[in-house]
């Protein structure tokens, strides 16, 4: 009875996540063609900015953990 319950919960979770992934695939398909065509330079600049900002956030986390460890 208990195993049956676990199996039905797992099946529901499986269905739940499969539906979410379907949704994400559907969203990606809906927005496949952006309305504004970015030039390659703009795309590269935006990507570099993102990577740079994430690097700064990584340094912040490093500082955060050094303060925690130091306490």
């Amino acid at each position, binding site marked *: 009875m208990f195993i049956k319950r676990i199996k039905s919960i797992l099946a529901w979770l499986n269905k739940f996540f499969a539906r979410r992934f379907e*949704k994400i695939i559907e*969203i*990606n398909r809906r*927005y*496949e*063609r*952006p*309305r*504004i065509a*970015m030039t390659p330079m703009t795309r590269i600049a*935006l990507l570099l*900015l*993102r990577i*740079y*900002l994430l690097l*700064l*956030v990584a*340094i*912040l986390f*490093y*500082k*955060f953990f050094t*303060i*925690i460890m130091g*306490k």
Partner: protein
Amino acid sequence: MNILSRLFYNYRRVAKAIKLFVLIAGPGIIVMVADNDAGGITTYAVTGSQYGYNLIWFLLLLLPVAYIVQEMTVRLGAVTKRGHAEAIFDAYGSFWGWFSLIDLGIVDFLTLITEFIGMTAALSIFHVPPVVTIICVTILMGFMVLQGRYWTWEKLAIIFCALNLIYIPTAFMVNPSISDILSNGLIPNIPGGFNNEFFFLLMANIGTTIAPWMIFFQQSSVVDKGLQEKDIPWSKLDTLIGACATVLVAIFIVIVTGTVLKGVNIESAAQASQMLMGVNKYVGAFLAIGLFDAGLLGAICISLASSWAFGEVFGWAHSLNNKAREAPWFYVFYFITLLGAGAVVLIPGAPLVLITLFVQVIAVTLLPAALVFLILLLNDGNLMGKYKNTSWQNFWSFTIVILIVMLSTLYAISALFPELFK
């Protein structure tokens, strides 16, 4: 008779304008006042205690910065009738859309944690256990959103915004020296020189004045309220009044701690409240009530910003005008983020104060990415028509982006090589 009828006509005109403004006002005032959230109150309290009145000039500079950024979201929301997340997906595709959405989700969740930290810390001064605070706040926020009307939610939020002004009488109660405020606070100065702590506090102050969630929140709020292009001028005034209120409150908090606790090493607004209670119990109590109110306002807006953004992208019904049965996922997401953030606060031994300050800095570090997309969208002539950004608006917006990136870089360098700034 002529004069009388002219006076009456002018009176009717002004009364009509005020009535119209009151109808349209809301998103700007709420987002700006909520901007003084728990993390913000902590940042300002620490700023005042560490630097006295010496950084008031910097807070004044943040007024036009906040207005410039938020005014753009008003135009974008009123013209496109779409939230910010959906606008990015539609304009730039799913790669940039997901980047922005996940960014927002993470930063919003972290910021929501800081709101609960502030609220639990504020009420623990009055001996209310954290778990009781979290449960009561969740119930209150649930009541606000589940009644199924944006207008009701907005009016309740504005009442909480008005409570945020409690810091103004508090500042008068500590009898600050006006001449000291004017001489030390209004002339730009770098007390103690450039160092890691100074950069950190500058960034925390910027991060608490403009944050990514504010861009998403105000745009979605403008859409949910149903504002049109013809409402843009009044919405701009709404945003300007909100920006003035937020900076005014920030300055008064700095005055409170800068007067009574200058040179004292405080780490949080809750700690400042407890110390101030020893000086004047009303001042301490008002600071604590203000801190709770700030956390509540922040939590109200940030949780909605995330729910609106995810609802727009996932295609859920996502309006406050929908009841729970009509928009189940919108409200489920809302409550899950609230309860999740509340649960983190209850983790024993969590460095809550450190988390509060760092989250402000993380938010401002990621802000340029959100700002760049906002500016790019506002430069799309096909989308914005006559409401496209002017050259001056682009100049100031990009200047803000560049300055934030430079400051973030300086902080990172000072964090890695502190000897460079001694």
